[in-house]
């Protein structure tokens, strides 16, 4: 019997997820021993045609990281879906859209304008921007189409499991792989991480006060952060209460507030809204003006609460004909 | 009226106009008309009600009951001096002065106002002057008024007029604005629009008739 075949693929992401696989360290050898990695563009020289030539369902599992935002990524994930028994959305971007998902506050034109014209360091007197088709002497050259909207993986293809995190914690990856190999998988659609919020494993939990209210929200650079005390109690916007645990509280241990990369727990259908609700509830005032004042300290609520999950928002995005999204008025 | 003349004081419902109240109520805030409780504060406050053929309160009752002919041809509306005492004191916020205006406008539109009574004549002379020149000239206005109502009366007023003239308080010069065209084009737009809606207009705009 041949070993299970495994594919890794990389869509709109930073590459950190690929690093995370390597971070398995010595464990990766066990993985390599147990499976055949048949497709991993970032590390090994396989071509798309290699996948195309496989039978449907031949791949046991594909780990796909990154959000989907171009025609090429779309084609590739559809291809992998066809060829795979299981598809695992790997990391925040594939799971909930991730940092690239914040692009949904703008549209394609706005981004092109920014990248090709407005950035101070750009010199583009001829006003050139990429075009999808170009007639060269060799024939027609093409570039993938960049979508107006960034999507999560499951908005494009059916996904079997999710490995959250930016990047997914090594222990969760190892556990997931071993479960797949042993066939001890939970029901389809599950997130392969504990279903409880970060506070549960946060070393600062003991220092939480009984009444969690705030007169003033602060940003990390504005205060000397106490290394012991609950960060939220210090006025920092730590999203630990809203975010799934499993990372070992890496950030809060390192004296930084949780930014929510692991996404919500399963009772929550919209991470940003829940975060907003919980945080706004803490504003310690019953006066309309003062409430406004306290909450105005939250500089960029969408960026803060949907940092990793804007495309997964229930709202998804507002359809905007003009390129003015995201500008705070 | 000391001789019995065989009056028959009965009004048949079919002679009345049930839409009349809606016509009047179509002015801004006019719907308040429906909430009149006939308390008589308006008539009590009115300095002119003793001279009116119907008191202001009766006018409202008649509007509501559809006595269109009586209301439009009555002197009451034309005696209203627009002092707004009724409007200010009405416990139901009925803008009675505005209702008087609405009745006057309807009366003019339907040509049933008391002919040769000076106030409607004054109004229309004033209107014409402003329409044409943008301002009214008091001397012209008065001359026109007396010519149309009671030409002989003008002699009675002569002394007063001359005295005012000598004090520089009346002038034969026609007052006018400079940009008459500008004003004309503004008013022209409103030619076809009325703030009192006729019955037909009420029906065609589909306005809910309570």
């Amino acid at each position, binding site marked *: 019997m041949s070993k299970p075949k495994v594919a890794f693929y990389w869509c709109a992401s930073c590459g950190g997820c690929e690093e995370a696989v390597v971070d398995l360290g010595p464990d990766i050898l066990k993985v390599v021993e147990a499976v055949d990695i048949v497709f991993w563009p970032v590390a090994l020289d396989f071509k798309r045609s290699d996948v195309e030539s496989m039978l449907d369902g031949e791949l046991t599992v594909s780990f796909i990281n990154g959000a989907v935002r171009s025609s090429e990524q779309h084609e590739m994930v559809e291809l992998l879906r066809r060829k795979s028994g299981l598809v695992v959305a790997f990391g925040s971007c594939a799971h909930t859209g991730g940092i690239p998902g914040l692009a949904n506050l703008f549209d394609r034109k706005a981004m092109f304008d920014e990248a090709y014209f407005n950035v101070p360091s750009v010199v583009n007197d001829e006003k050139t921007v990429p075009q999808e088709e170009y007639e060269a002497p060799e024939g027609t050259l093409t570039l993938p189409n960049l979508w107006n909207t960034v999507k999560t993986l499951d908005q494009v293809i059916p996904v079997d499991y999710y490995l959250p995190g930016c990047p997914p914690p090594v222990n969760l990856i190892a556990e997931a792989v071993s479960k797949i190999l042993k066939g001890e998988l939970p029901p389809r659609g599950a997130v392969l991480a504990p279903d409880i919020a970060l506070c549960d494993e946060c070393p600062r939990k003991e220092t939480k006060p009984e009444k969690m209210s705030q007169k003033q929200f602060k940003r990390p650079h504005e205060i000397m952060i106490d290394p012991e005390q609950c960060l939220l109690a210090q006025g920092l916007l730590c999203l630990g209460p809203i975010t799934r645990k499993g990372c070992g509280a890496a950030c809060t241990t390192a004296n930084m507030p949780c930014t929510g990369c692991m996404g919500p727990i399963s009772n929550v259908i919209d991470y940003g809204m829940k975060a907003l609700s919980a945080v706004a509830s803490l504003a310690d005032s019953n006066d309309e003006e003062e409430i406004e004042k306290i909450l105005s300290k939250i500089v960029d609520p969408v960026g803060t609460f949907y940092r990793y999950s804007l495309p997964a928002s229930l709202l998804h995005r507002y359809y905007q004909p003009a390129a003015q999204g995201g500008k705070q008025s | 009226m000391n001789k019995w003349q065989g009056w028959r004081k009965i009004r048949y419902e079919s002679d009345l106009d049930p839409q009349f109240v809606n016509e009047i109520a179509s*002015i*801004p*805030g006019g719907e308040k008309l429906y909430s009149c409780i006939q308390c008589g504060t308006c008539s009590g406050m009115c*300095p*002119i009600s003793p*001279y009116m053929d119907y008191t202001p309160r009766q006018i409202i009752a008649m509007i509501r009951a559809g006595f269109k002919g009586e209301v439009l041809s009555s002197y009451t509306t034309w*005696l209203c*001096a*627009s*002092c*707004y*005492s009724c*409007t*200010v004191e009405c416990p139901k916020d009925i*803008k009675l*002065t505005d209702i008087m*205006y*609405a009745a*006057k*406008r309807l009366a*003019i539109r339907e040509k049933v106002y008391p002919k040769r009574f*000076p*106030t*409607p004549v*004054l*109004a229309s002379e*004033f*209107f014409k002057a*402003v*329409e044409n020149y*943008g*301002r*009214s*000239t*008091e*001397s012209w206005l*008065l001359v026109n*008024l007396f010519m149309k*109502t009671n030409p002989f009366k003008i002699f009675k*007023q002569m002394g*007063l007029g001359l005295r*005012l003239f000598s*004090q*520089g*308080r*009346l*002038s034969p010069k026609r*007052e006018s*604005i400079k*940009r008459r065209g*500008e*004003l004309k*084009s*503004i*008013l022209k*737009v*409103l030619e076809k*629009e*009325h*703030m009192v809606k006729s019955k037909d207009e009420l029906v065609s705009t589909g306005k809910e008739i309570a």
Partner: protein
Amino acid sequence: MSYIYYPGCSLKSTGRAYEDSLLAVFEALDIPLQELEDWNCCGATAYMSISELKAFALSARNFALAERQNGENDFAEMVVPCAACYLGLNKAHRYLAEHPELRETIDRALEAGGLKYNDKIHVRHPLDVLINDLTPDKITGLVKRPLEGLKVACYYGCQLVRPYSDFDDQHDPQTMDKIVKMLGGEVVNWPLKTRCCGGSLTGIVQDVGLRLSYILLAEARKRGCDLIVTACPLCQFNLECYQSRISGIYGHKIKIPVIYFTQLMGHAFGLSDEMLGLKRVFVSPARAFSKAEGGQHVHG
């Protein structure tokens, strides 16, 4: 704050003395008044009877012109001395704000004349300006001929306070009373201060109009007043110019000077009779004024 002066038709004619004295007094008080360029009739009482919509459009044109004249300034204070114009403009101002359908129609009409109104107008009566925009010492400081012993009836008439004015009480207005007191005069308690003088009826439906004026004059006389002050050209006209006819009709000799409150102010400020249009009167206030003479000069 910029004040744009809206005279209205009467102040250019029968009410000229009002204009003369108003301009003189405001100048003495150092409040620059700028006359509204090419103003038109406010669309007053008589006009309303024919077309309310057009009446509102007339007012709206004045607003639009005033805004234009006001240039970059935020709000224009439109000073309207004639009570009828004050009501007409104030009513239009209010209705345009409260009734969007009406507003939309009027905007359309203005546009046809190449004008636009952006709600940047406050309609103000001079009494409102004098009481609310100035400190009292500004007025008392100018008094050179205090009106000591002079019994004055303050006649507000109807349209100045009713139904929309918000600068004074509708039943028992006080602004003119305050000014008379600042000038050193004595205000007569006179319950008819807002009762109608007959308005435009007086000259034309005399049975009614003259009686209304008579009631006011007779009661003022009974209460021992030397002088009536008004803030409305029509009231002034009715109460003053018909006095001899009223005396004739009701067999009750009445001769009370009826002047504008601005004339009274100007007199107290020591301005000349010519400047105040005090030559343009039927019943001279000279005797009444002399009653107050011998009073101390308040300031040098």
